[in-house]
């Protein structure tokens, strides 16, 4: 029964229904039937809570062995009856890469981490060493061998995670939102790695919100809604959807070049932000109205020896949203920490309307919505969270703030029990209650589907309307397009450029993010030129 018409079926789910014992672990699924052929690359997509992560957990055996609940139906990978064998028996056959690079390594150094899986299943030592070597070369992480994992960037960590899985040489790879916390270069690397796995004949199952980097890799798209498979299509069909159709399905753009078309559409509409942004020309004088000026913002480590951040001067439009872009490790997070005053030893001054704010003063003027928002919610209810931020607790005002963010009905819930987007809004509410003027977001859309991304964009527009100056560190061009007016591009700890998001600005911003597309172009050129250059 294991053969379909042409290819051998590797993964087979038959009438699978699963509900978590603890519902906060994930969304339940109903009557899933799915056959995946050897060497196939399948994309699982759908809005958050559609159950796509649950499907990946069935394939790698985390359900039912790690996440408990009630399961019916059968799950097979090759001849293995996944629910009825132990997890370690699945380990050599199915490899998994997860969403958060920070929390998926078990050891503290790169070499141990890559060897970890092979060691666990007791392969001979020489084999393990060979495989570590091979996997490290495949992912181009030889230079990282022996390094401390805690010192690596998110992208590097994710590569090490891939190498560790690769070293086990599994038949099937399961990737659970692997791009969520990566910058564009790391995403392009991930895309290359998936291509490599495919070329090795491995079966790849990936569930994702960000789709563009999977172009040209995916053989089949499975669309889920409310725990059921409701549609199956090819990549071409996915691309053929109009923007409105995609919005209804809750899907992100499958190709970044589509965004340039969106820019032209925006340009054609006379009332759009793109036209207003054209008038966004900023003064360099610190006393000018309507702008926030940052002067000499810098931070260095080791007694001045290592400069992490060195911004001579940066002027931003007041009451508008500015995107902070740049590769990972460019100093964006340090910039945010310096700006909101939590980085001890940071130098520099912020000027608003002729008033200067030094580091300690900025602690009271600025607010950062952290990437892991769990760190900044302290109390036992959403309402208390807002009241805590007020100098004099005022419930009426608190309710008004919560209402404006759509949190009023949730006011008695525990902040840490909310969804990611709700937690973010809860943090925003506490910033509003403390009357902060500058609000900084650190990658607010990582791991969000389209609808939730749109919701964040709306929140940011709301903040603009209240006159707040918003800064957003992000790797998400779709999101920038949805809500930002200005861009500051940071590279190597200093300001590379800053520009208004008018027609030209949008194009410039988009070009920065097209890493994968640029790479493809270079590869194509290399191929064209190589036959000519060889004979010499």
């Amino acid at each position, binding site marked *: 029964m294991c053969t379909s018409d042409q290819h051998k079926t590797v993964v087979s789910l038959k009438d699978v229904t699963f509900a978590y014992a603890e519902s906060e672990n994930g969304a339940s699924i109903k009557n899933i039937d799915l056959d995946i052929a050897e060497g196939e690359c399948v994309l699982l997509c759908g809005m958050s809570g559609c159950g796509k992560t649950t499907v990946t957990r069935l394939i790698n055996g985390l359900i039912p062995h790690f996440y408990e609940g009630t399961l019916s139906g059968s799950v097979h990978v090759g001849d293995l009856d996944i629910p009825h064998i132990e997890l370690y028996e699945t*380990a050599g056959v199915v490899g998994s890469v997860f969403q958060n690079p920070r929390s998926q390594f*078990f*050891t503290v150094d*790169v070499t141990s981490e890559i060897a970890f899986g092979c060691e666990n299943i007791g392969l001979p030592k020489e084999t393990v060493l060979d495989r570590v070597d091979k996997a490290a070369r495949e992912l181009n992480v030889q230079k990282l061998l022996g390094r401390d994992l805690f010192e690596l960037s998110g992208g590097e960590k994710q590569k090490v995670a891939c190498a560790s899985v690769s070293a086990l040489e599994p038949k099937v790879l399961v990737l659970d939102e692997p791009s969520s916390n990566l910058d564009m270069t790391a995403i392009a690397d991930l895309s290359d790695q998936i291509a490599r796995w495919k070329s090795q004949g491995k079966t790849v199952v990936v569930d994702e919100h960000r789709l563009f980097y999977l172009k040209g890799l995916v053989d089949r798209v499975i669309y889920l809604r409310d725990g059921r498979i409701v549609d199956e299509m090819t990549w071409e069909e996915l691309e053929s959807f109009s923007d409105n159709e995609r919005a209804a399905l809750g899907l992100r753009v499958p190709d970044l070049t589509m965004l340039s078309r969106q820019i032209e559409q925006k340009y054609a509409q006379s009332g759009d932000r793109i036209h207003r942004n054209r008038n966004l020309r900023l003064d360099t004088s610190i006393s000018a109205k309507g702008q926030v000026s940052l002067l000499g913002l810098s931070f260095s480590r080791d007694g001045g020896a290592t400069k992490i951040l060195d911004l001579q001067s940066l002027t931003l439009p007041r009451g508008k949203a500015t995107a902070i872009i740049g590769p990972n490790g460019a100093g964006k997070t340090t910039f945010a920490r310096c700006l909101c005053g939590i980085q001890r030893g940071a130098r520099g001054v912020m000027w608003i309307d002729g008033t200067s704010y030094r580091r300690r003063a900025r602690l009271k003027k600025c607010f950062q919505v952290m990437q892991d928002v769990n760190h900044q919610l302290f109390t036992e209810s959403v309402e208390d969270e807002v009241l805590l931020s007020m100098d004099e607790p005022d419930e009426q005002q608190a309710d008004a703030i919560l209402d404006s963010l759509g949190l009023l009905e949730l006011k008695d819930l525990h902040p840490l029990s909310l969804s990611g987007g709700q937690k973010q809004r809860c943090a925003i509410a506490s910033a509003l209650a403390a009357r902060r003027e500058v609000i900084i977001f650190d990658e607010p859309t990582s791991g969000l589907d389209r609808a939730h991304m749109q919701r964040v964009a709306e929140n940011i527009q709301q903040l603009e309307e209240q006159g707040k100056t918003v800064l957003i560190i992000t790797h998400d061009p779709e999101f920038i397009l949805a809500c930002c007016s200005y861009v500051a591009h940071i590279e190597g700890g200093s300001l590379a450029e800053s520009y208004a998001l008018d027609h030209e600005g949008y194009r410039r911003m988009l070009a920065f993010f097209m890493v994968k597309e640029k790479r493809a172009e270079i590869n194509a050129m290399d191929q064209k030129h190589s036959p000519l250059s060889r004979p010499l």
Partner: protein
Amino acid sequence: MPQQILRGAVNNKGGITLDPRTKIFVAFILGVVLLTGGYNGGMAWARPTLTAIPLVLLLSVRKWGAAVGYSLAFLASYFAMTYLMPITSGPLNFLVMIVFGIFLQFLPCIMMFYFVFSTTTVSEFMAAMERMHLTDKITIPMSVMFRFFPTVNEEFGDINDAMRMRGISFGKGNLGAMIEYRLVPMMVCSVRIGEDLAAAALTRGLGAPVKRTNVCSVGFHIQDLIILAVCAACLVAFGEWYVSVHF
């Protein structure tokens, strides 16, 4: 090439390599002898010898910065104790004692722990514990802790930053709140990270009932024997001292 990888795993800066068991044993001896031992008799030489061990070890793996920092901090505290203690009195004297005295007491052990944690990989650590015939009931939790202390530290730092940003570092004057605001998010985040970590480890076969391979070759070399001999001598001096004061 495999041999090169091996070296990468064992030590990222080059220098002399010690068996992880030696390191753990030395840390253990340092804790017991320096923190519970006295100052007279054989301890008069055992104490400075043991205090010097972390310095020697740090130099042996070319951690110059840590070695210099350790020496400076130690000397500064030592001189502060020698010269400030006699000339101060009352609360000020007490303050000097707390700041420098206790620092002096714990510094060698702290540096030794730093040495162990920064030069031992989880893989080596597990290999060493397997060689000591500990069951994986102890090895697995201990290696998770190895990985988890830096994480808790990171989380704690982030939470403290967030509290400063909200202006509630001191819980608005309420001691209970001060602890609660730190402990609750720290535990929630740690537990969630722990869950991810467990899932990732289990899908890579942790806990399989086979004999675990280990890429790092642990074994005692001449450098281990020298260090162990020195420690053994100090332990004898400690034993002598212990008997002399207790019986």
